[in-house]
């Protein structure tokens, strides 16, 4: 006797389920993290698209807590790596160790902390480029190779790296090529006074807040993979694709339709990964709005987190303190005016 046929779920129900899961995850994380709604949303969005996130903020804003809470909420395994200058790649990805069983000595693979669903790379800019490269390679390939043996990283593999914008002495800023591998760069700002009051209440009182996992731990990876699949099914109209291409062209020096500010202040613009990030983020935005197709607003919402870390400013921009965000906002204004 065969198994019962799997019940077909309508697209509308699938989208509704996506929205429900997302909203529940946001709510659970918000139980622990006060404020930072936009950061939480972008973090979950990146998770739904299979991308990684670079979080930038001064110490003490709750970056580590946010990532830990997110992993807990989604029912995923979580590992934290504190990056230091003496951290070696093998400390992250693991290494072959000599073990003795039944009188026989052999090498066996000892997996590093990279083998988890959610990996927090704390202060990633403190490690040497060699170590950073080891992580970034794993991020891109979703596998690691040790002594010729390749080990796949179990999906969903999600890296959240934090970067401290101050205390830059003794740090190794991430090379542009490696920054490009992060889907988003989100900036955590200081909490507002009322948020700070709420933080104090929650962290200094007797009651401790813990998020409830929205998925069962054993089903969580599969569930998240389903949601990721759904996000990729969202359709994009041809004019929207042209719009995204025009955005990339506008902020690429020497590209088609380059803005004057871009030529003046940028050395390099976003790579095709930037356009991919825009579309994926816009797709998740569309699903969160209950639509099966991307709109211009969805794309515009994704521009800053998707592209800000992909613009390489020149010396003049740094001297004049022209930020990548300012250039992107200028480009967006021009494009809106011309469309």
């Amino acid at each position: 006797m065969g198994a019962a046929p799997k019940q077909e779920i309508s697209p509308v129900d699938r989208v509704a389920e996506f929205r429900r899961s997302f909203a529940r995850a946001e709510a659970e994380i918000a139980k622990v993290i006060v404020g930072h709604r936009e950061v939480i949303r972008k973090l979950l969005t990146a998770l739904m698209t299979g991308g990684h996130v670079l979080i930038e903020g001064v110490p003490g804003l709750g970056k580590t807590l946010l990532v830990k809470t997110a992993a807990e909420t989604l029912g995923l395994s979580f590992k934290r790596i504190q990056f230091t200058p003496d951290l070696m790649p093998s400390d992250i990805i693991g290494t072959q160790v000599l073990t003795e069983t039944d009188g026989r000595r052999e090498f066996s693979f000892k997996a590093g902390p990279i083998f988890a669903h959610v990996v927090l790379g704390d202060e990633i800019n403190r490690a040497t480029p060699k170590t950073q490269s080891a992580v970034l390679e794993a991020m891109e390939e979703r596998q690691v190779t040790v002594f010729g043996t390749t080990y796949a990283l179990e999906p969903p593999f999600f890296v959240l790296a934090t970067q401290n914008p101050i205390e830059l002495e003794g740090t190794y800023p991430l090379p542009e090529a490696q920054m490009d591998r992060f889907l988003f760069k989100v900036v955590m700002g200081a909490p507002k006074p009322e948020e700070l009051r709420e933080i104090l209440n929650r962290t200094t009182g007797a009651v401790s807040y813990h998020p409830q996992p929205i998925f069962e731990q054993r089903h969580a990876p599969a569930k998240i993979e389903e949601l990721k699949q759904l996000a990729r099914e969202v359709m994009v109209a041809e004019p929207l694709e042209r719009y995204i291409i025009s955005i990339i062209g506008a902020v690429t020096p020497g590209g088609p339709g380059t803005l004057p500010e871009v030529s003046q202040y940028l050395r390099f613009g976003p790579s095709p990964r930037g356009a991919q990030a825009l579309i994926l983020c816009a797709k998740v935005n569309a699903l969160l709005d209950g639509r099966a197709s991307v709109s211009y607003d969805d794309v515009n919402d994704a521009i800053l987190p998707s592209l800000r870390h992909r613009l390489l400013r020149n010396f003049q921009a740094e001297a004049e303190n022209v930020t990548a965000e300012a250039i992107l906002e200028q480009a967006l204004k021009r494009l809106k005016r011309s469309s």
Partner: protein
Amino acid sequence: MNSPIEIILRTSKRLARLAVIRTLLYSALPLTVTLAIAFDLDLLNGLALDHLGYRIDAVPAHLFQRSLLALALVQLFAAGLFAWRASSHAGDFMRTAEQIDRYIGGRQEIVTLATVSDPGRPKAAGMRSPLFPMLWGRVISYLEAFNPRLAFTLEPREPLVRSSILAVVAVIIMSTAAFALMSRPTPAQSVIRRLQLLANKIEASTPSLAQQQLAAAARDVAKDLTNPKLPPQEKLAELRALAQELEKSQKQHLGASTGSGNSSGGGTSSGGGDGTGRGSGSGNSGNSQTGAGAGNGGKANQQMVELHNDIAKAQMKLEQQANSGNNTTMARNDSSKGAGAAAKPGINPNQPGSQNSSNGRGQVPQPKTLANSRMPAGQSPSARKGDRGSMGDTHLGEFPKPGNYQRFYKLGEHGAVISMRDARYVTFQVPTEIDAEGTGAIVPDKNHPQAVTPYTNAPLKQERLPVSPDEQQLVPPRYRELIR
């Protein structure tokens, strides 16, 4: 409920139609203006002659008209081309979807559906995802209340405003071209025009048989004057005959219409030639119309006087032409007989009273070449052509160069009495007209029933001074070219 694809297709057809109409509206006014000017060029030319004193000659006018018609053709072709482009652009499936999206606020769902369902692209269906049914359902709900006829209507205001701007630009360009082609008419052309107007005027009123004949004669003469093959002598003869006819007709008219009108003035018609060459001088009897009884015929009289003036000028010109033709013969005769003919001036019909008969010695307005020869040495226009001096403006640090400039006598400089004979410029006080009491009609002023002449007379000074002193009245350089 129609499918969304059908609705988009229907809308695209409507948008294409609207685009064509809008494009044709853009070009409507410029095209109309161009055609109107092309077909009414003769009328406009006549108006320009009447009001501005300039006209486009026949050959340039013909070329200009051809150019305007060609321009209209180009405009028509361009309008057709743009309409076709606008139609294909507006009727595009994707663009239509975008327009509908904007209209209903569909957040790009219509255009996404169009992207994956474009009937013109079979591959589009392959881009559909499992979420397509959801998209289809949402688009249907959007388009339930959508009616292309109500959503996209023709708004003619904007295209018409743009069209009128284009029309104004076209008028400015065409007017500039027309002004560039205009020239001052010859006396013969003035006469032709006036004769045509006279004939029209006579025919417009209910003319008697004699007047009809006069109108026909005027037309004939006008036509003959335009005929280049007709010798000047014949033209001259026709013109004289017509002048006499006109005079006769005018006398009859005045006799019939005025009881107390006073037609005074006399004239002598004399002609003579010195030597054996054929010299002819013509004079129309001076015919000043005076008298209060003329009523509103004053204006008509004025026109008649102007016509007489023009005829006189044309006669003089024709005489010159005739004489120049004869001079070739006369030049041969001069060698044997030592005498030639001098052109005789006509008679100013506006001068009251009898005039001196032309005896060949009178001072006539001198042609340019003669005037040039009378200029002081080194002061001919050709010599001064490059010397624009300071143009009378000294604020830039330029001062008029001391030179032997042509000048005029100041009033009274040459004595109390100034002879009219050498006058270059004479100012008349023309008879004035006043508003009749209470009637609103304009009637001649009894206090100034006729022209008073001259009350200013400034003849050209004969001798030149080597250097003009400061106190002398210099001819401003900007007016030099105007002095003929």
